[in-house]
């Protein structure tokens, strides 16, 4: 018997402080994160939801009309149980700027912010969004814990960026952190320092190859920008690696849990599994898998094959009859029933496919707690829709 993901138990457990929603692009991560946040808030928790790139109308329903990198309260939630819901949308450049401003002197910060290399890294480096999402998560956590007796938030729900790979947000902080603190950047920053001692001769020959080749590839002026950037960043050395380590520790803490979201499609489930394995490898706590957008039919007792057969039979019977009587009213009416049966057959077939994909997944991975969320017939862009998703997540 497969285990069930008990969302209400998870949201109700005061030990759950961070929930990370991850999965492939287009499976409904943002909606799931928002629905979990709303459900937790309406059950009495003080929640902040960090979204990365919400659909326009969903963002509006959460009151996210301005992108100002600060959590804002979501209006019209049911707060009778004493909960609250704040939401924010990540501005990665601003988050990065704030990191710099917080860790460098005013003068250095100004130099860094004006540097072309910094501007490029902070606005377009492929991992910056992931790095800054995790940075923001750390900041929210600090803010939440500022007053332990009266925490501003006791639950943070975070949506992960639509990355090249769903794992980028685990790797990007380390990658950027180790680069910014790494050997190469020190060499670039101060090539002269390396040449002094005898045993460093080989090292310095290596340095020459590196700088010469990088100059060839990137052009001397880009290297120059990098060097000024690094020099300006000098005071922050160590800080980036430390922050990356801190983020990593936060993600593997027992109060953090991951929810992997997938759609009932072969590729999305494969990616979800890949992600689950990776979490396991990193010893990060998995709450379970949400299989989103499961197609369901209402007339469950009628199979696709039987519905198609009945539609055909109805047509046959009709043509027999009309050769005798020929009343057009009946035929129009029958066409409706026939249409309903054919429509049902198509939907039942999709539902059966989704069901069998989910079943096979469960059979292959019985240890992974799972919950299925039915597909909604329209787009979800208001609190009513989010509440319905929340109900489904909780198995109602």
């Amino acid at each position, binding site marked *: 018997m497969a285990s069930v993901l008990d969302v209400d138990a998870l949201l109700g457990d005061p030990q759950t402080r961070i929930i990370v929603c991850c999965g492939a692009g*287009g499976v409904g991560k943002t909606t799931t994160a928002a629905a979990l946040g709303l459900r937790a808030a309406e059950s009495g928790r003080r929640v902040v939801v960090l979204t990365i790139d919400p659909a326009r109308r969903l963002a509006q329903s959460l009151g996210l009309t301005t992108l100002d990198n600060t959590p804002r309260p979501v209006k019209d939630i049911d707060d009778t149980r004493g909960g609250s819901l704040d939401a924010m949308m990540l501005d990665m450049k601003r988050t990065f700027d704030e990191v710099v401003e917080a860790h460098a002197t005013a003068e250095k910060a100004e130099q860094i912010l004006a540097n072309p290399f910094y501007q490029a*890294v902070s606005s377009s480096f492929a991992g910056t969004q992931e790095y800054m999402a995790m940075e923001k998560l750390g900041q929210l956590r600090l803010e939440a814990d500022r007053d332990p007796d009266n925490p501003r938030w006791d639950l943070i729900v975070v949506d992960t960026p639509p990355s090249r*790979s769903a794992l980028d947000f685990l790797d990007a902080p380390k990658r950027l952190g180790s680069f910014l603190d790494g050997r190469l950047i020190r060499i670039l920053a101060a090539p002269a320092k390396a040449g002094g001692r005898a045993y460093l001769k080989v090292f310095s020959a290596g340095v020459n*190859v590196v700088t010469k080749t990088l100059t060839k590839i990137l*052009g001397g002026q880009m290297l120059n920008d990098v060097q000024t950037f690094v020099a300006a960043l000098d005071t922050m050395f160590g800080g980036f690696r430390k922050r990356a380590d801190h983020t990593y520790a936060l993600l593997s803490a027992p109060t953090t849990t991951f929810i992997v979201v997938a759609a009932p499609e072969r590729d999305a489930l494969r990616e979800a599994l890949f992600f689950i394995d990776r979490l396991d490898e990193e010893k990060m706590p998995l709450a379970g898998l949400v299989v989103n957008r499961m197609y369901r039919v209402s*007339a469950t*007792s009628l199979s696709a094959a039987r519905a198609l057969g009945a539609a055909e*039979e*109805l047509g046959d019977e009709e043509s027999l009859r009309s050769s005798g009587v020929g009343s057009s009213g009946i035929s129009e009416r029958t066409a*409706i029933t026939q249409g309903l049966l054919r429509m049902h057959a198509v939907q039942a077939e999709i539902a059966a496919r989704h069901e069998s994909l989910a079943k096979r997944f469960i059979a292959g991975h019985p240890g992974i707690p799972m919950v299925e969320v039915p597909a909604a017939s329209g787009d979800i862009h208001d609190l009513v829709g989010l509440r319905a998703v929340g109900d489904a997540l909780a198995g109602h």
Partner: protein
Amino acid sequence: MAPDAGSVRDTDWDGVRLHIVTGKGGTGKTTVAAALALALAGEGRRVLLAEVEGRQGISQTFDVTPLASAEVRIAHAVHGGEVFGLSVDAKAALLEYLQMYYKLGRAGGVLERFGAIDFATTIAPGVRDVLLTGKVYEAVRRRRDHRAKGPGAAPAYDAVVLDAPPTGRVVRFLNVNHEVADLARVGPIRSQANSITAMLKSPQTVVHLVTLLEEMPVQETVDTIAELRAVGMPIGGVVVNQVREEILTLDVLEAAARSAISRKDVAADLTRVHVRATDALVDGLLAEARDHAERVTLERDEAKAIADLGRPTYRLPSLSEGVDANGVREMAETLMAQGMA
């Protein structure tokens, strides 16, 4: 053989050598790129299908062993056409590039040890994209006989299909020139970026967008087309994927939406063909029809938004069995029938 010499059919994109396919995550852009490659490979052509994000989407779609940075044949099309697959890797592209232009030798290892290769391929902004698009650029320009020169020489590939990053990142990815402009004002990366940009913005290239009839994917399609246009990239067609078969007529849908279908009539019809017309069954069917009507209404709005774009539009039916290698062939046939290839 010139690219068009063997063609007897008119397609919407005659003369295009590079087809770039993008779309929101979950719309099936990799499958559509694969189907387009198969369709283009009809009539004995050679087509390269390339991916740049290391996802192995191509090998999974065609059910072949994972692709590496070497081009291998992954499928035969009808009449002897061939599709080759390539997973472009930035690191391999950089080392190949350095080898080609600088005869690097041992220095490659030193660069690797100092983290310089990682720096150039993952951290230096824009450089990675120049390397990835650069490899595609090279494949488009390559001659079948590498000694042959001039415009008459036969190309190695009649067409290249690029399974590009999703809509959220594609404009930045393709606009390499702008990305490196502030950083590399001179130097080889800059001139490489200039050549790539010239090709990407030429009539040889188009960017196709894959969407579903849902709010987010359509919104992203509309936004991305505007962004592509703003940076001067040539826009191709819009492929509407997973289109549901129209089963109920407009009248029936309207009646269903208003809950105006007679329960009694439906129950009587069902009984006539020996289906046990329980309340649950009849109500279930009517509820399904209502939901369906709601979906169809939304889909019509989205279809209108796509029509308003005024781009050539192709529709691929939803495959009830899901997409496997056979499904891709079916999709290729449909694209050919609609004139995309």
